[in-house]
């Protein structure tokens, strides 16, 4: 994780026009700077409306910023026109929150995975099918799913297809915008582990947009905390969690509901014990 950063964002600024005539423009992202290195996960955390998704959209150049630089492998993407960007897009790919919404309901899974290659003009009818199979293996999906359509898949399987699509063009950076928050809890960890394994295997850089601080604590190398369009604090994950400096970060951390563990000897409030020690309000079935 040394050397020049993969992604180097400097003084990024995004303004939206005000909703009414003559109202002030909204400053969604305010001079935000951060770096992501190869093989590293930077988590961007904050509440809804703090500007994290605007930042992600601007890094992907799906939205052009009003100021600042987005340097990807040394090239400032904000200075490139659309045709020049198209040459670089395969290298930085998004994974979105809604696994169904990001797949066409009409495409079979094998075609959904092949689509990015076709669009980029890199589809080879001879080697293509093998590449699709390889991508299915990479995201640990059974080959039999290739001929299904999205509605026949579970949310977790759809998200794996979304990841396979992102990987099809051999990217170096993934922008993960809440990639598991729409998934069922029991499959969230599996998809997250897949992303971690892929990172270790392929050396990908991740810009990880997430509001689940527990998840961030476990998987991110570094964290940047956003509030009102600005980064109020950033640093190594352990440092942010053990000694948050900004008052806002402290507030965010205390909003994480406490989860009692057997190791804790905290008294758990309420739920008074009954004399018998038995559950008193769930009818006991014989």
């Amino acid at each position: 994780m040394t050397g020049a950063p993969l992604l180097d964002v400097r003084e990024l600024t995004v303004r939206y026009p005000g909703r009414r005539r003559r109202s002030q423009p909204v400053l969604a992202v305010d001079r935000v700077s951060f770096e992501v290195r190869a093989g590293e996960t930077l988590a961007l955390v904050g509440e809804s409306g703090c500007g994290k998704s605007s930042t992600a959209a601007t890094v992907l150049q799906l939205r052009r910023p009003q100021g600042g630089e987005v340097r990807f492998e040394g090239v400032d993407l904000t200075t490139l026109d659309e045709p020049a960007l198209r040459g670089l897009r395969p290298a930085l790919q998004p994974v979105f929150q809604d696994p169904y919404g990001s797949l066409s309901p009409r495409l079979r899974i094998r075609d959904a995975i092949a689509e990015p290659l076709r669009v980029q003009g890199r589809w080879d009818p001879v080697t293509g099918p093998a590449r699709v199979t390889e991508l299915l293996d990479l995201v640990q999906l059974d080959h039999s799913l290739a001929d299904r359509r999205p509605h026949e898949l579970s949310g977790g399987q759809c998200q794996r297809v979304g990841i396979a699509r992102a990987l099809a063009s051999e990217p170096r950076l993934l922008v993960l915008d809440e990639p598991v928050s729409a998934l069922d809890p029991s499959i969230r960890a599996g998809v997250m582990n897949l992303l971690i394994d892929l990172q270790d295997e392929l050396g990908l850089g991740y810009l990880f947009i997430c509001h689940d601080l527990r998840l961030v604590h476990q998987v991110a190398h570094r964290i940047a905390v956003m509030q009102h369009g600005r980064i109020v604090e950033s640093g190594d994950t352990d440092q942010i969690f053990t000694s948050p400096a900004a008052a806002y970060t402290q507030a965010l951390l205390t909003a994480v509901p406490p989860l009692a563990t057997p190791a804790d000897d905290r008294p758990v409030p309420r739920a008074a014990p009954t004399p018998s020690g038995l559950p008193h309000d769930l009818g006991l079935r014989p």
Partner: protein
Amino acid sequence: MTALLEIRDLHVTVRGQGGEVPAVRGLSFQVDRGQILAVVGESGAGKSLTAQAVLGLLGPSVAMSGSVKFDGRELAGATQAAYRELRGRRLGFVPQDALSVLSPVHPVGEQLALAVRSVQGASRAAAWDVAVRALDRVGIPDASRRARVYPHEYSGGMRQRAVIAMAMVNQPDLIIADEPTTALDPRLQAQILGLLTGLRDESGTAVVLVTHDLAAVAGSADRVLIMYAGREVESGPVDRVLVTPRSPYAVGLLASLKPMPAATTRRLPAIAGAPPRPQSLPPGCAFAPRCPLAVDECRAIEPEPLLYDGRLVACHRAGDVPAAELAELYR
């Protein structure tokens, strides 16, 4: 004391193109006055259909059987007229999507005042006062002014507060909240859950909190009922079920929520596989194909909830696997 809400052997079946899909399969539980019960499950676990069954909101292609008693009165088979007597009066409802219950063309205060007048027959002025007080109580700043504006002028968190105000404005005995915080970020989630517990503490309103977020339950519920594939997996006091879960499914869910001791790996403890589709349930225990402890019995016979260690657990292995071994399952 009789329970406020008592459900016995509830079955909910959805008729679809591929035949009948069993979505809730023999669920029993009860809620006492002033108690907060969290019903936790993943999509397809049947938790929302259970909530709809209690509220009489099941659609025409959905059939239910079993007993749903509210304050001693049997609701199964009741007419919509009977439900209308209860909903909004004694039974409040907080849906996930606030905009689905707020009319876009009337100011929020008017909608609340209308609810008050239709139930309590108060004068316009008195009903307006009650509406403003309700908005104030759920923490909407400058309530008398905000009562005059439309839902689209509210932020997401304020809308969800307004819906809670709507659910509580006629002082119901029970509020059923179906994923009330799912669309909100963590700080708003904590505030909304705090609002529901505050309501219980002050007014003694019982709450059924339907959620897929086990972590949200920890700080707000008294009891928790964990569902999987339409059945109860484990239920009991929060301080037992969440601290020392006894069913492998609950152990797995909780493992992914707990911070790891000294992060030696970034990988998360994960449950293998995915939940079954209700139209193709495996034989025996529905969790068996994903369960690290499954034995032949699990794959053949569906377990019934039985009492272990102060909570109900539906697991054939609950009696013979020591707690220490359970805790190591997903390490």
